[in-house]
């Protein structure tokens, strides 16, 4: 790989870490009580990224599809679990729902991009597959979190309305589809917002990275466009899947609203 960029040494990293003093200072002055979480978050970020750097360095030398797919699967599983961890309520099976939705959405979208759009040879080339999958997963995870959370809250706040309709003879879909629609809409908002202002307000991280690494800005922009479409499709599929699965769980085949399945997390 060409290296027409300035490599960063550990000393320079330490210098950058000094910037966290701004956050800690602010937290201390305003008594935000964030000092400890900020330090932990900063530490986690540094350790996780350094580790993943080593993992990626090793990974990019691999040529075994199974190893690469296994890593991809682990990433997907972590995304699926993380998506649920941010919701306020749980029900039995919610982790499976999330895993299944993340897996199906990211596999479809990333697979299509690798084989159909970018046409990477071989299709599992980790230099392409892993970062692109990561981008899709990160955004799908956010969408799923938001969508699931909104769906469950929507059913709780609109419980009387849903049950009034059920009591009048509505099917579970007739009674609850406004909540399904709303949850999918809310889950999609961040993706749509970020597409709206992309390049105007925000310079996306991946594109910035490519440019810093010396790529032609036009090429970087093209990659970014592909990625954004992947993200939008992945998030939409993931949210759609997870909300429909949750719908099937929380509205029983007997057309009952089963809020008793929900448990609040602390």
């Amino acid at each position, binding site marked *: 790989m060409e290296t027409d960029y300035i490599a960063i040494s550990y000393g320079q990293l330490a210098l950058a870490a000094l910037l966290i003093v701004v956050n800690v200072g602010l937290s201390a002055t305003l008594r935000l009580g964030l000092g400890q979480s900020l330090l932990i978050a900063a530490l986690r970020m540094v350790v996780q990224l350094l580790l993943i750097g080593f993992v990626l360095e090793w990974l990019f030398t691999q040529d075994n599809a199974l190893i690469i797919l296994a890593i991809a699967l682990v990433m997907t599983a972590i995304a699926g679990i993380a998506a649920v961890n941010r919701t306020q309520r749980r029900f039995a099976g919610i982790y499976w729902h999330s895993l299944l939705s993340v897996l199906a959405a990211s596999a479809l979208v990333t697979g299509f991009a690798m084989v159909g759009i970018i046409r990477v040879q071989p299709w599992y080339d980790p230099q392409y597959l892993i970062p692109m999958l990561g981008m899709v997963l990160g955004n799908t995870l956010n969408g799923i979190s938001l969508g699931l959370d909104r769906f469950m809250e929507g059913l709780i706040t609109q419980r009387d309305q849903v*049950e009034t309709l059920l009591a*009048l*003879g509505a099917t579970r879909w*007739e009674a609850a589809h406004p909540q399904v629609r709303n949850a999918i809409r809310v889950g999609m908002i961040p993706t749509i917002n970020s597409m709206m202002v992309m390049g105007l307000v925000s310079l996306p991280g991946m594109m910035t990275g490519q440019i810093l690494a010396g790529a032609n800005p036009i090429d970087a922009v093209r990659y970014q466009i592909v990625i954004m479409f992947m993200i939008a499709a992945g998030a939409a599929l993931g949210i759609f899947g997870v909300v429909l699965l949750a719908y099937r769980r929380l509205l*029983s085949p007997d057309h*009952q609203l089963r809020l008793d399945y929900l448990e609040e997390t602390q």
Partner: protein
Amino acid sequence: MYCREAAALNRLSAEFIDREPKMEPNQPLLAVENLSRQLSERWLWRGVSFELVPGDCVGLVAPSGAGKTLLMRNLALLDPIQQGDVRFEGKTPSEWGLPTYRSQVMMVPQRAIALDGTVQDNLAQVFDLDIYRQRRFDPTILQTWLQKLGRGPDFLNLQGTRLSGGEAQIMALLRALQLNPRVLLLDEPTASLDAATTAQVESLLHDWLQHSSRACLLTSHDTEQIRRVTHRQINLGEFGKRL
């Protein structure tokens, strides 16, 4: 063309069935057997059995917290049945299909919920539900009922979400009545109404029950009302004490 005729024929036969239910004499409309309900570890009531025959109006009485509303929710299958059996005309709710069952055994909850729009929208939009697709919203019958309840026709133009508690109860009762259920489950139907309107609702209910194939189960905190309106009472407290 063929489709439209077939639809019209369907509608005719649907109306025909609505008006002339085939009833075996003395066959119960609703049969409840050994119904029990548990909240966490505690049994609220156990072994509740009774029948509603056509023309019946039965009062469900019990102290507060004994689970009257939960029994009604169980009869409407809004909550799953933990133990026991509910049948409408000899068939279980699952055999009917839940939407069909609930269109026949209809619960009107104590807290009336208005959907979007005016009272008229509220009443008309339930006909969009799949189960009523062969029926049409009928404003004329509503005018008659509104008159009996001492409301003018402009009641239909009020915004649903701005109704008072009592007005919402009237709206919810009319919304259910117009769908022509066979069994009405009324949970405190006049709790938010003044004395005059309460009397009018009671008389409307009395008229509605004149139809030979209907029955009604009703809860009320007002023992006088239970005595006035119902033919007999089920004391749910009895099913709790026996434990």
